[in-house]
């Protein structure tokens, strides 16, 4: 599917599909939020965000995806099963689903986000409004997306259902036309 976004390159925007990742969705079990946070702090050195934020820690990006829910995005490493490690770490405190194969993540580097990304979206992408590390769950042309700005502020990642990834790429291509 890497051909999806490779041809989307304009003066103000460049898109690519991120590959070689393990993406895990975790949801805190009822009443286990505090214990889950303790375990996360030990494992990653940071607390799980309670608001729409993405935090980077120990090579993982932890993205808030709703109350008591997160996506953990990790780069694949040979001989390491990230999902199995997370399942062991959060055993009994959270429900985990490996969503690597059901999500496509597009990385969009854009020089003028408030002009380009706003065209079909209801989120204010102005630099002062959507800051580095901010997250939004929303839709573009009826396609559900989770968008986060990288904590270093250099680009935006859009995660959508893999089934709709071609439609998302089409949207991006047409929006940029």
């Amino acid at each position, binding site marked *: 599917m890497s051909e999806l976004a490779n041809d989307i390159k304009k003066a103000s925007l460049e898109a690519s599909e991120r590959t070689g990742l393990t993406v895990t969705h975790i949801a805190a079990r009822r009443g286990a939020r505090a214990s889950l946070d303790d375990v996360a702090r030990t494992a990653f050195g940071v607390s799980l965000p309670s*608001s729409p934020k993405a935090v980077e820690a120990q090579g993982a990006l932890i993205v808030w995806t*709703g*109350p008591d829910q997160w996506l953990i995005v990790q780069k694949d490493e040979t001989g390491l099963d990230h999902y199995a490690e997370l399942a062991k770490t959060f055993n009994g405190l959270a429900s985990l689903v490996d969503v690597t194969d059901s999500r496509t993540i597009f990385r969009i580097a854009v020089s003028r986000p408030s002009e380009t990304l706003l065209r079909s979206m*209801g989120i204010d992408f102005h630099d002062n409004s959507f800051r580095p590390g901010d997250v939004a*769950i*929303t*839709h573009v042309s009826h396609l*559900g997306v989770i968008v986060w700005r990288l904590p270093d502020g250099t680009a935006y990642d859009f995660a959508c259902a893999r089934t709709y990834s071609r439609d998302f790429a089409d949207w991006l291509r047409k929006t940029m036309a």
Partner: protein
Amino acid sequence: MRINCPHCGERSLDEFSYLGDAVVRPDPASPNAQDAFYAYGYERANVAGPMQELWYHAAGCHAWLVVTRDTRTHEISEVKSAQEVALARQKVAGTAQ
């Protein structure tokens, strides 16, 4: 109309689904459960003024919300997480027992 989701911030109406009146569902174990469920299902108030309603942030964080909206003006005076509202009600019910 825009709704200020307590989790995501202010979002456009097209991200939300409307369920209706946020009255408390009757207790199925209560002695008058049949009448109470009939009233709950069919005898809805048609409020002209502020009303508590359930909205679902379907295209956002997937949280249920209790929105207080004036049905005449669409002015929204309060938005709370439905989970918080339910827990507060349980606490009040527990205190009353």
